[in-house]
């Protein structure tokens, strides 16, 4: 056996004679003396050592076998997937005026109609539920809680259908949190509300500058009050969008949360991500502070620094592991307020990226979306493939006006993966 091509070797922080092996395929890691690397290549491992490293995915029989494993990896994940998922854009309206909103000029008083809601229910009913045990909807916007009656109506019908089939129905919200009052949560919980992702962009002064109400007033205090009063009734995940100019202030948000009693016992997870500049016709004209590319060195530095601050305070955050793009999920659909279907929320408003609509159904999209474009020698021999699978198609579209080809993330991973793996080990993720 030999070292897996999806194993990364990092220096040990504690011993010059040892190294850390990390499997991008299995998210496993070991500390070994450097001698073992030579023993692996020379076939001198003991049977126990060989079995242990093979079980962790760190060594493999050969390149051909691993290549086949990767080529069928996503297909295998889809075969094991037991849920059918929908992201529903209920409106493109909002009560905030975030400076960087990626939906930009797509926004407006556009709401999902009764007719589209009815067609959506038909579409949900028409999916294949063989070997499925769950329907999940993520309500998205705009601001989904501006459409709370629509959430109720859709959920009642989907739940009735799910109950009839003996499967579970749950839903989540991606909300700015302004309307996530305890009254709203109490109303939606019995219908299947399980979790909400709420965005806070740093401490009060920074957040209020980036995410004000349309009238200009800050939204931070309103959101925090809602979180304090609702956090025990549903699973709250906090996200935040940072720029090069403000990311160093984000740890102050974590302190503010803890001061208000919103510690790791009440917040399910925290994760901060960089604002990506929308460079298309939808871009807000006055905002250019986001990153143009994940390759900008400050992005990797900020990601590792803020993750450390999150973990240091005991909050959960996603571990470093293979996570193929949502687009790869066969039984997952994004529907906009007009009933048009997409594979990613970033694509709404772009008719050329649609995969169909709830009236006429889904058309083939793998080729137009370039979903198999990573199946080439460069990607299949790249140690980062299991973390990347061709990168982000939305970013690819923004930068090159096409989803074909790959959005190579090698230089980003070169910078960030070592520090993130060290964090995972240090904090026991």
């Amino acid at each position, binding site marked *: 056996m030999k070292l897996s091509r999806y194993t990364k070797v990092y220096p040990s922080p504690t011993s010059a004679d040892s190294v850390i092996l990390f499997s991008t395929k*299995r998210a496993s890691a070991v500390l*070994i003396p450097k001698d073992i690397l030579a023993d692996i290549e020379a076939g001198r491992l003991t049977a126990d050592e060989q079995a242990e*490293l093979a079980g962790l995915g760190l060594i493999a029989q050969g390149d051909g076998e691993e290549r086949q494993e990767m080529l069928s990896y996503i297909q295998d994940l889809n075969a094991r997937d037991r849920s059918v998922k929908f992201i529903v854009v209920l409106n493109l309206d909002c009560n905030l005026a975030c400076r960087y909103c990626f939906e930009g000029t797509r926004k407006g008083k556009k709401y999902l109609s009764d007719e589209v809601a009815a067609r959506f229910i038909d579409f949900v009913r028409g999916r294949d539920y063989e070997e499925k045990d769950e329907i999940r909807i993520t309500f998205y916007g705009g601001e989904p809680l501006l459409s709370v009656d629509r959430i109720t109506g859709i959920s009642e019908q989907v739940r009735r259908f799910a109950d009839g089939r003996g499967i579970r129905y749950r839903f989540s919200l991606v909300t700015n949190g302004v309307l996530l009052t305890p009254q709203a949560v109490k109303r939606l919980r019995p219908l299947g509300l399980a*979790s909400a992702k709420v965005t806070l962009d740093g401490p009060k002064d920074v957040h209020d500058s980036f995410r004000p109400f349309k009238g200009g007033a800050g939204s931070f205090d309103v959101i925090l009050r809602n979180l304090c009063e609702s956090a025990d009734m549903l699973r709250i995940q906090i996200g935040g969008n940072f720029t090069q100019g403000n990311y160093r202030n984000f740890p102050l948000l974590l302190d503010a949360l803890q001061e208000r009693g919103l510690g790791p016992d009440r917040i399910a997870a925290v994760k901060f991500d960089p604002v990506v500049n929308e460079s298309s016709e939808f871009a807000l004209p006055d905002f250019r502070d986001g990153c143009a590319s994940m390759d900008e060195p400050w992005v990797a530095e900020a990601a590792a620094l803020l993750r450390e601050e999150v973990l240091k305070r005991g909050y959960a955050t996603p571990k470093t592991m293979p996570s193929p793009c949502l687009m*790869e999920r066969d039984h997952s659909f994004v529907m906009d307020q007009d009933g048009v279907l997409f594979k990613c929320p970033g694509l709404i408003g772009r008719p050329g990226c649609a995969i169909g609509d709830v009236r006429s159904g889904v058309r083939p999209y793998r080729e137009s979306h370039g979903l198999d474009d990573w199946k080439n020698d460069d990607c299949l021999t790249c140690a980062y493939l299991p973390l990347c699978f061709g990168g982000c198609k939305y970013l690819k579209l923004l930068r090159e006006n096409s989803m074909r080809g790959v959005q190579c993330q090698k230089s980003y991973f070169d910078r960030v993966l070592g520090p993130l793996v060290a964090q995972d080990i240090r904090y026991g993720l």
Partner: protein
Amino acid sequence: MEKRIVVLKKAVEKVEIIDGLCCFGSFIPYLWG
């Protein structure tokens, strides 16, 4: 013979395609529970 391998992280048992929304371009997704 002395044990030479120290396991720092066990292999993940269950890998899933992103369940919910990622930050566009960020390889660590939001996992919805």
